[in-house]
């Protein structure tokens, strides 16, 4: 029982982490990124390559891949997203356009990964030693992944809520039309938010690859779970993403342990639908 709680929280921690990235992209840059999960998978493979060919420790890989995720997303925003933002007459149009374009992006990233690595399951062995936590045994890599998720997620929350930079981003999320009146460069804020989202996806990829197997085609499932967490938590809400992420991790682990591992996705969907019918704006959403 306790073992499942611990495992559920570990899994939920990574969900919360990646969902924070997606919710920042969606809440501030107003871009619904369906290629998000594939960015995570790309980071998984990058970590794998760094570890197996150059024997770079995954925690060190974070220092390389997180800035890389930031820079690449920044470029993607400038090249692909900005023209769409400029052309969209309203928020709804941008939402649809961004969904369609990132759907294309999803296939491009997936195709590149498939060509480079093939379609098989990939993993590497890192810190696979058992650790005793509150009387139940957990693999050290899982524990490290959880701690990293907590620390990185925590840093992001502090930056968002305690710095001027974070305040600018939140202002754009809250009132995109009035923010420019206060001298805020909304285009730059949106780009930054999109890039932070990319950096978080990269973080998530590195962390997930430490304890899970992955395939080139697994991105869709990650995107879906991250989206579900974002919506459950309330669009754009960072604390919501954390709570919903942990909840989802627990639900999945318990369903896998007590009902059937093949039904986790069905369970996740049931929770998603049930909650949406009760609270259409998510746990922390505003009406």
């Amino acid at each position, binding site marked *: 029982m306790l073992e499942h709680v611990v495992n559920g929280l570990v899994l939920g921690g990574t969900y919360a982490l990646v969902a924070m990235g997606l919710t920042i992209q969606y809440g501030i840059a107003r871009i*619904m990124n*369906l290629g998000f999960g594939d960015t995570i998978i790309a980071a998984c493979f990058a970590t794998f390559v760094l570890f197996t060919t150059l024997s770079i420790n995954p925690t060190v890989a974070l220092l390389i891949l997180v800035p890389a995720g930031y820079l690449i997303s920044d470029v993607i925003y400038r090249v*692909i997203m900005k*023209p*769409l933002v400029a*052309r969209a007459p309203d928020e*709804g149009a941008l*939402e*649809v*356009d961004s*969904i*369609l*374009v990132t*759907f*294309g*992006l*999803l*296939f*491009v*990233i*997936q*195709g*590149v990964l*498939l*060509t480079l690595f093939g379609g098989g399951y990939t993993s590497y062995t890192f810190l696979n030693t058992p650790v005793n936590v509150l009387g139940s045994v957990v693999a050290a890599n899982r524990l490290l992944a959880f701690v990293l998720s907590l620390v990185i997620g925590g840093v992001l929350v502090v930056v968002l809520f305690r710095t001027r930079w974070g305040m600018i981003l939140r202002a754009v999320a809250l009132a995109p039309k009035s923010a420019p009146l206060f001298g805020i460069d909304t285009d730059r804020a949106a780009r930054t938010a999109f890039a932070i989202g990319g950096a978080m996806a990269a973080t998530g990829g590195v962390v997930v690859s430490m304890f899970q197997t992955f395939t080139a085609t697994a991105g*869709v*499932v990650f*995107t*879906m779970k991250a*989206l*579900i967490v974002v*919506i459950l938590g309330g669009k754009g809400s960072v604390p919501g993403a954390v709570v919903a992420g942990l909840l989802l991790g627990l639900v999945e682990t318990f369903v896998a342990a007590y009902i*059937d591992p*093949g*039904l986790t*996705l*069905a369970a996740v*969907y049931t929770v*998603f*639908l049930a909650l*949406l*019918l009760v609270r*259409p704006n998510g746990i922390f959403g505003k009406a």
Partner: protein
Amino acid sequence: MKTMHGFALVAVAVVLLALAPLFVSEYWTGVLLGMTGYVTLATAWALFSGPTRYVSLATVAFFGVGAYTVAVLNEVLPYPLVLLSAGGIGMVMALVVGLSTLRLAGVYFVIFTFGLAELVRQTVSWWEVNVTYTMGRYVFLPFEGRHIYWQLLALAVVTFLISWAIGRSRIGLALKAVGDDESVAAHAGVDVTRIKLLLFVISSTIITLVGAIQAPRWTYIEPSIVFNPTVSFMTLIMALLGGAMRLWGPMVGAVPLFLLFEWLSVSFPDHFSIILGLLFILIVFVMPNGVLAKIDDLRKGGRA
């Protein structure tokens, strides 16, 4: 008078298309078959998603359910009943999905439909492994390519007629109002939820039938084959390229893209999805409202 001419032209075209397998090789019958399948899928998709602007990514969920129903029932029931059952199951599934999601705002709908295929695939796989103890089924039906093609052609014609009739009816007008501004439409007395639900059910039932009719082509069926997300993707991109708001739009998009994809998948099998993705991005950038709208724009621009 103009409509009558239109009808006559379409009728001649359909007869010619129906006769084609008697004159062309088996390979080309196969190409025609695939093309008719996608024309029907794209038209059925646009039936709901075009006017309402609710982007549905669930095409393959219904397509796969249709194919799977045939795989399960083809040895127990006579073929017409198998098709009827497939259509019925698709209809019920669309009702359930519709009733639980259509009240939700646009982006929730996109996300739910995005995952629906994955959900159905997992559930079917789980059922087959744990309940029926079979993974993968065989479809033995005495059909050649042209038999499947004729059935698809008939379905395509029916789909076009439905699309045409809806476009001219009060429902079509109400739908356009929903697409323009849902709350305004609701205030004007349009029963938004009911109309959306009706259209979603019609569109999904047709999509299920396309999957069911095409099932005999595979002979061997497995969840990962019939729930391949590329089907949703191609349907969407075809309808978009042609223009989802117009009767002929999806067809105008589906025919060239199907031929292009056919060629690409033979010539560049390993890089297919990269090219597909880039093409998609390009289409969204260059022709957000489709080719037909673009041509209209150019014409108007030329005159002005």
